[in-house]
């Protein structure tokens, strides 16, 4: 069983997604519990996988027993091991919270379909994380995107239109990635990542290689919603059902961020001549993006739309860490990746709970929430404080490393960008917290918050505290071994 772990992480949600859909014909509640079991099993196997990687080092799994350069290899090292665990854990926590919300928001006939899509989405995301084959990654990227298009389209009127725009954008991104894979294949004759790394070492610099790298980065940039390629995200995530945005917002873009790290620092090296220029460009784009998104977040009237822009500005911070490209910048970027999954999970689940209680998502409607429902306000409080970077929570440590990285790399423009965009985000968060805790109350609370929501929000808050407390352990045990395995640091 232990040998099969890398494959199990992908196969469990895939098999369950079929089962969930079929079981929908038998019992109405059955699909939800199957989905819960599927995500719990996945979290468990990814946890075991992570422990094994920390103990024994990178694991290579050959699908169907075919040797790596020819067959498909699943390769789990410290970076994707920890990401797979974080992704499946947050997916489990989100799924745990939202049954009653889904049942209220979506018509009965669609329940099993939606749950099957959730499972398929999880399969795609985890597959992207563990795969060691560039073409397999493309296929899994498309699996994840397809389920996202369909899930977004289930939402309110207008959702199907933003889903269509998302589809057009997503396809351009995936096609750019595929073109980049084609360039790499022509130059190296291989699709296996480890093999490509070895072959690239002896390859002379050429314009084909540069174009290939740029295409890969553009393709992933679309999926990750980096600055000029972000336009699909706010519409799609704010018009999807609230449960869907709670599931997609923390996970999808971060997994794409992981792929960016893998391409830029593991497959290609920062010493690669044209990558320096690329990183510089990425840094400037991330800088503009961080300012732009933070301002956009402040002027929104709808809660979910504001938080979508907050999510985008957090991704821009990740781009800044990548652009610094030194030891502390990379530490910050990876830590930020992990923290951001939890922070966005916390905030978007709070929104989901808030919408469930009041059927309203205007920023104004938050007034007086703090006294009425402590759990939802706790989610906003802890998630918000962590996003700004207040010391005891996880967000502080990742920002600390990001700032150290910019100072070490002497990238002063990025330092200014980081600080100013954090300040602007703080304005938004404090505006929200003021509404929640300090404004008089006129909210009529007609129903109780489902128990599962409070459990999930509490676990998110505790994990954010733990991420703060364990930050140095995570850096020492997981992040540093990966960075030092790259060489050159």
């Amino acid at each position, binding site marked *: 069983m232990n040998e099969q772990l890398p494959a199990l992480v992908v196969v469990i949600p895939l098999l369950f997604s079929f089962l969930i859909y079929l079981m929908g014909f038998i019992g109405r509640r059955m699909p939800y519990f199957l989905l819960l079991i599927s995500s719990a099993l996945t979290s468990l196997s990814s946890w075991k996988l992570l422990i094994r990687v920390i103990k024994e080092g990178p694991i290579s799994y050959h699908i169907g027993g075919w040797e790596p350069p020819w067959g498909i290899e699943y390769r789990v090292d410290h970076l994707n091991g920890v990401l797979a665990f974080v992704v499946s854990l947050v997916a489990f926590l989100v799924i745990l919270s939202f049954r009653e919300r889904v049942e209220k928001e979506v018509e009965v006939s669609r329940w099993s379909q939606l749950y099957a899509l959730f499972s398929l989405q999880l399969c795609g995301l985890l597959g992207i994380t563990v795969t060691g084959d560039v*073409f397999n990654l493309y296929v899994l990227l498309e699996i994840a995107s*397809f389920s996202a298009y369909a899930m977004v389209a289930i939402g309110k009127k207008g959702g199907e*239109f933003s889903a*269509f725009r998302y589809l*057009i954008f997503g396809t351009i991104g995936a096609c750019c990635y595929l073109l980049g894979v084609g360039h790499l294949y022509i130059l190296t004759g291989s699709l296996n990542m480890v093999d490509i790394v070895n072959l690239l070492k002896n390859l002379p610099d050429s314009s084909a290689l540069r174009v290939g790298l740029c295409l890969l980065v553009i393709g992933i940039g679309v999926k990750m919603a980096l600055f000029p390629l972000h336009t699909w995200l706010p519409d799609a995530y704010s018009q999807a059902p609230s449960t869907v945005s709670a599931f997609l917002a923390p996970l999808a873009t971060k997994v794409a961020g992981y792929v960016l790290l893998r391409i830029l620092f593991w497959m290609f090296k920062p010493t690669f001549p044209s990558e320096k220029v690329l990183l510089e460009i990425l840094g400037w784009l991330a800088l503009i993006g961080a300012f732009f998104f933070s301002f956009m977040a402040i002027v929104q009237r709808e809660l979910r739309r504001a938080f979508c822009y907050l999510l985008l500005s957090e991704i821009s911070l990740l781009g800044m860490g990548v652009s610094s490209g030194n030891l502390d910048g990379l530490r910050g970027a990876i830590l930020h990746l992990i923290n951001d999954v939890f922070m966005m999970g916390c905030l978007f689940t709070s929104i989901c709970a808030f919408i469930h209680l009041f059927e309203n998502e205007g920023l104004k409607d938050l007034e007086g929430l703090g006294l009425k429902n402590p759990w939802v306000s706790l989610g906003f409080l802890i998630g918000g404080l962590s996003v700004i970077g207040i010391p005891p929570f996880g967000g502080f440590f990742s920002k600390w490393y990001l700032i150290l990285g910019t100072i070490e790399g002497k990238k002063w423009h990025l330092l200014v960008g980081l600080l100013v965009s954090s300040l602007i985000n703080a304005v938004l968060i404090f505006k929200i917290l003021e509404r929640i805790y300090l404004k008089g109350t006129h909210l009529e609370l007609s129903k109780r918050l489902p128990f599962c929501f409070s459990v999930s929000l509490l676990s998110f808050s505790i994990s954010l505290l733990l991420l703060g407390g364990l930050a140095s352990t995570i850096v020492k045990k997981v992040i540093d071994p990966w960075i030092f395995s790259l060489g050159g640091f």
Partner: protein
Amino acid sequence: MYEVLRHYNYWLYVLLLALGLYGMMSKANLMKKLIAMGIFQWAIIYYFISIGAKKGGNIPIFPEHGIENLTIRAQDYVNPLPHVLMLTAIVVGVATTGIALALLIKIWQNWNTLEEDEILQRMRNE
């Protein structure tokens, strides 16, 4: 000039790629956008088929018996791998088109039009 024209298949793919991108950006009708997206995807499939093809290349199937005595020269056979990859990419393309058509049906049911600017206008008014 001859050097440029010799690779006419790659020029064709670039042309198709640009055509698809132009269509997706400039057309207001969603169906036309979808068609342009199809052209874009097919351009990439065409590109991958080009990189596997060889002039005078044979199909890469060897006789089952007597392979020990056979001297196999790689340049006599087309490279099957990119073509196999494109089988998967075609399936992905079909699935994309399927989802997009389903979305278009739903858009038509909800808004009774497929013109992007009209839908945006009405979204703003609501």
